[in-house]
């Protein structure tokens, strides 16, 4: 017989080992290390504003969404220092943050800046007894049951050392720097990886059924 049951007694080529030792391992290490560096740098950067929280990491380049009225968030939040929850009033007690009712807009704008074209448009809606048809900017798939209530509790109301005035910084975790935008547009990916990393960093729950029901 030509073949016998003897197993090859040769040795593994040195070339392979060299490749692994000199190139593959260091480069993988470098890659992972730098990734960690970038992540932790991002985390450390925002630490100062909201205590006891690690903001989620990730960016997204959202489309501009045409709205019936070009609502200037910056004027309201940055210039006039209105708290986010003044208008998005349901956020602290409901899964959804809600769009302010038209009456709330009119509460101020029946006297303030009534001559501006946008306010005129708003007044028109109000007089026609129909709310403006806002378009949704931040959306998650239907099988994701995100709740604002619990997140605000964790990051604002139960967060020692957190000033309620700074709530826009907490909102910014997921909604981006809305206070410097006019019409809001999406700057965070709001996908599962984005959520997961934040939950990991802040020790949030890891039960699938928290969000997927």
């Amino acid at each position, binding site marked *: *017989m030509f073949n016998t049951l003897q197993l090859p007694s040769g040795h593994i080529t040195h070339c392979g080992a060299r490749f692994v030792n000199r190139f593959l391992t260091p480069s993988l290490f470098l890659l992972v290390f730098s990734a960690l560096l970038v992540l932790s740098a991002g985390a450390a950067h925002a630490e100062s504003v909201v205590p006891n929280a690690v903001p989620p990491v990730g960016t997204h380049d959202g489309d501009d969404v045409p709205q019936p009225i070009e609502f200037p968030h910056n004027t309201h939040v940055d210039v006039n220092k209105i708290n986010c929850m003044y208008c998005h009033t349901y956020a602290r007690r409901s899964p959804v943050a809600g769009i302010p009712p038209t009456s709330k807009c009119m509460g101020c704008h029946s006297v303030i800046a009534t001559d501006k074209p946008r306010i005129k448009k708003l007044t028109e809606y109000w007089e026609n007894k129909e709310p403006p048809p806002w378009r949704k900017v931040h959306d998650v798939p239907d099988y994701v049951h995100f709740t604002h209530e619990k997140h605000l509790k964790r990051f604002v109301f139960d967060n020692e050392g957190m000033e309620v005035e700074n709530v826009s910084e907490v909102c910014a975790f997921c909604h981006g720097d809305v206070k410097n935008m006019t019409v809001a547009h999406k700057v965070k990916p709001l996908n*599962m990886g984005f959520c997961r990393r934040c939950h990991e960093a802040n020790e949030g729950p890891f039960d699938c059924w928290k969000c997927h029901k």
Partner: protein
Amino acid sequence: MSKDINEDIKWAKINEDVLRSMENPRKGYWLAIAGCLFLLAFAVVAEIYQYNVGMGPANLNWPHMWDLYIATFIFWIGMSHSGTLLSAILHIIHADWRKPIYRFAEAMTTFTLMTAGLFPIIHIGRLWNMYWVLPYFSDRGIWPNFRSPLVWDAFAISTYLTSSALFLYMGSIPDLAICRDSAKGWRKKLYTVLSLGWRGDDRQWRHFRKAYLLMACFLIPLAVSVHSIVSSDFAVSIMPGWHVTTFPPYFVAGALYSGCAAIITLFIMLRYFFRFEDYMTIPILEKTCKLTFAIAMVWTYLNIIEFSSVWYGHDPIAKELLLAKFTGPYAPYFWAMIFLGSVLPFTLAFEKLRRNIPAMMVVSLLLNLGMWLERWMIVTPTLSLAYSPAAHDVMWPSWVQWFIVLGSFGWFGLLFLIFVKIIPSVSMYEVKEMIFHRRHMAKKDIAEVMHRRATDKKPASETPGLEGA
């Protein structure tokens, strides 16, 4: 007893005969291709329908969550085992009569695996998310459930498929070199690439043999484990009729059984269509038949063990299920399986029948049918008649399932037909080895030389060369 192979056959004739089978196809070949495509078309139509509408039209229901798809999946997986049996197991136990027939058996292994692998994908409700079964790094940080036998399946089948495809390819490199040397035109280019610069020199042969043996040793446990893992889909469950300890050997035996039967079928077909009478000889057929018969008896034995362990066991529900298999709505199929699987193989015990090619053709097909029924009888009665009496229901598969099952045969046939035109379906170099070997086995001196080579580590060049390759 006649010889396995004509030892005086000229090596050039071997090349000629085998290469002839790979020449431009004749009309019959195209007809066969068309037939396979036709069958496949049924499956494609059914699958598109099922993809768009859901699993409902297949008559899958509560409680029949699995049905023919999984049964046929096991059937194809099982069939794949014989290629390994012939090429690897018989290789390391030095049964050289396998040499003329192992190539197509190995191809069968690869292609049945390629067919079988489709079924888990087909049967999954959301096949567009199929890849979630594989462990891969993702942003979402989710992994498959490593406790699930379905995940083990995914690993086992993909490993087995890769290895057997490699084994098939590697084993045919010397033959591909022959093809390269005699081919013209685009074929020459193709075989030049495929044969990886095989020159047939001594060093190449030495490495080749080592690698081949290594692969063979690797494949044997793999093959056994693959079907054991497939059987654990059932054995780790809690359902009566599935929760059986003997399932792994039972599945492996069944696998080898159906594989051998399929080898007989393909053996006869290749012998007839490609005039391989010189290589696929009646004595080899007989040996294969004897092997099949032996495995059939092992299978029967394991069957009896399964039944009797249920019978002597404590589980009344498993017992009721077994009785239901004997007498219930599935009884005709069950007894057909017993007849085809345990009684019919006795025809293989008779030399006269073994040598009768038409009879063997029919018997081998029937054995395969029996083995398919076996898989169906494993999967479905348990679903129909398990623990909860309120969920007892008998549901017959709809056209969607049948089309896809039929189509899988078309798919396999198509792959096999392409194979026979691209890779020599008889291993030329090994047939030459065999002839050479047999011719010189008669002469003691050569045998002694060989013996010395194995033990005394004399240089290989002392042996008569195989430069003819």
